[in-house]
């Protein structure tokens, strides 16, 4: 009998432990942990672009969570999204001229609404309105800004332009940096397709400071890392003459498509018999086999 009782007690403890674990998972590690909150009040805001902002996303002041996004809606006929923020009562002293901004937490993180306090002496009340907002910045904008800033396109001394033809520009975009020895010396000014040569004609705007580039230099489109953006690299040649405004770079190396790279890698890595399915000439299959 005592044997049975110990089973029952042990089993009971096991069940309690299991449910405790479940409760822990559900309340401490999931979104429920975010959604439970005390009394709150609603604040209306408008954003021109909410980006990836979702309902229940946190609302933060100085990086500390003060509430969450209650609803996101678009009124027909308007081009701004109505976002209702639900903010906890204890954070009731938000100045009316505060600015609500949609931020991204980290490169991969979710978006949240950050509130920077203004200096007004009056506070937003329940149902009140925050007029000053800054919309979500899309990653592309941020990247191009970043690239633009880092791309030495500040070009205080003005730029001169050089053309280069590529058979394939890949994901190269206008504003991408032009680098020599890894240092940015200018940016891509324009990319357009040449209707007669059927090539992409890329115009590079290079800082006037770098006027000593040999005119037989080559241009190549490189990718910075696997997921990085593409840039144009100039490899200096040995000619005594320098590039001038409007010159053409003859030696170019087009962008390497990731698919091509992987394909090459796969083909080279496989047995030689599988080579040359595309059939561009140099067959190294034993001739006698045919």
């Amino acid at each position, binding site marked *: 009998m005592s044997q049975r009782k110990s089973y029952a007690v042990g089993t009971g403890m096991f*069940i309690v432990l*299991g449910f405790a674990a479940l409760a822990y*998972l559900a309340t401490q590690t999931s*979104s429920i942990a975010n959604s439970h909150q005390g009394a709150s009040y609603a604040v209306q805001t408008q954003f021109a672009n909410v980006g990836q902002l979702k309902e229940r996303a946190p609302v933060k002041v100085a990086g500390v969570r003060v509430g969450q996004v209650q609803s996101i809606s678009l009124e027909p006929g308007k081009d701004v999204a109505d976002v209702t923020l639900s903010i906890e009562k204890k954070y009731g002293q938000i100045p009316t001229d505060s600015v609500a901004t949609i931020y991204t937490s980290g490169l*991969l993180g979710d978006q949240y609404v950050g509130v920077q306090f203004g200096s007004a002496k009056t506070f937003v009340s329940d149902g009140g309105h925050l007029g000053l907002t800054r919309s979500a910045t899309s990653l592309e904008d941020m990247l191009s800004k970043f690239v633009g800033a880092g791309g030495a396109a500040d070009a205080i001394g003005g730029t001169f332009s050089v053309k280069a033809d590529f058979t394939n520009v890949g994901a190269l975009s206008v504003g991408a940096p032009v680098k020599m020895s890894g240092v940015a010396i200018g940016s891509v000014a324009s990319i357009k397709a040449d209707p007669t040569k059927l090539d992409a004609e890329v115009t590079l705007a290079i800082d006037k400071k770098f006027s000593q580039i040999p005119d037989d230099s080559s241009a190549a489109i490189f990718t910075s890392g696997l997921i990085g953006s593409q840039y144009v690299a100039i490899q200096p040649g040995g000619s005594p003459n320098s590039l001038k405004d409007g010159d053409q770079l003859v030696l170019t190396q087009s962008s390497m498509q990731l698919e091509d790279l992987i394909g090459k890698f796969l083909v080279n890595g496989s047995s030689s018999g599988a080579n040359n399915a595309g059939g561009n000439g140099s067959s190294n299959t034993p001739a006698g086999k045919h």
Partner: protein
Amino acid sequence: MSAQTGRSNNVVMDSLAQIGHCGLFLLRILASVPRSMRYVRETVRQLWFVGAMSLTIIMTCGLFVGMVLGLQLYHVLAIFGGTSATGSVVALAIYRELGPVVTALLFAGRAGTSITAEIGLMRATDQIAAMEMMAVDPIAYVAAPRFLAGLIAMPLLCCVFCAMGVFGGHLVGVSWLGIDNGTFWSNMTATVDVWQDIVSGVVWKSAAFGAVIALIAVFQGYTTPPTSEGVAYATTRTVVASSIAILALDFVLTAFLM
């Protein structure tokens, strides 16, 4: 009979016959569940054996799985500058996939085999026949309680596994690699959805796994030839069949629950 000795030539027909028998056996178990309510004590006892006795291995493995996930993901995410997402990725990986599957595989090895061996030996020593003779339905007394115990124990074990896994990920991520404690938790709580990830990911999935493992284990034990060779063979087959069933079912369930 060839299905029981496992020496048939036609593997496919054999497997189909096994699945068919197994399905009919499930119906017999389900039909006997109301009768087996009289044997609640037996169910509790089995819950002790398959559930509580598996806690040590489940907790240890959960801790290590969480720790290694934290370590691996931290270094992968560091490439993208996203180490702050370690907590959420560890939690999602454990809840959606590793928790239920690893728990189920461990459960099949730990509890499934012991169920099969026990029932096989009960058969070999005529205990099953003796119950028949004492007017006790062995399906209701032996099979159903073990089946129910597996069904109940698996979700509970899986929750414990997941909790230990998150703890292990926290241990490595926060205490060792220095991710900010608040970031770790807030990222996790921001991404884990209680219905999608915990209820359907952890609880339903592991309950389905538990039912499948317990069914296979009971079935193999119940239909094994009453010899020591037969019991050994059935035990092996429990592990093989449940592992395959778990992974196949995992794919199907994931496709449905997503």
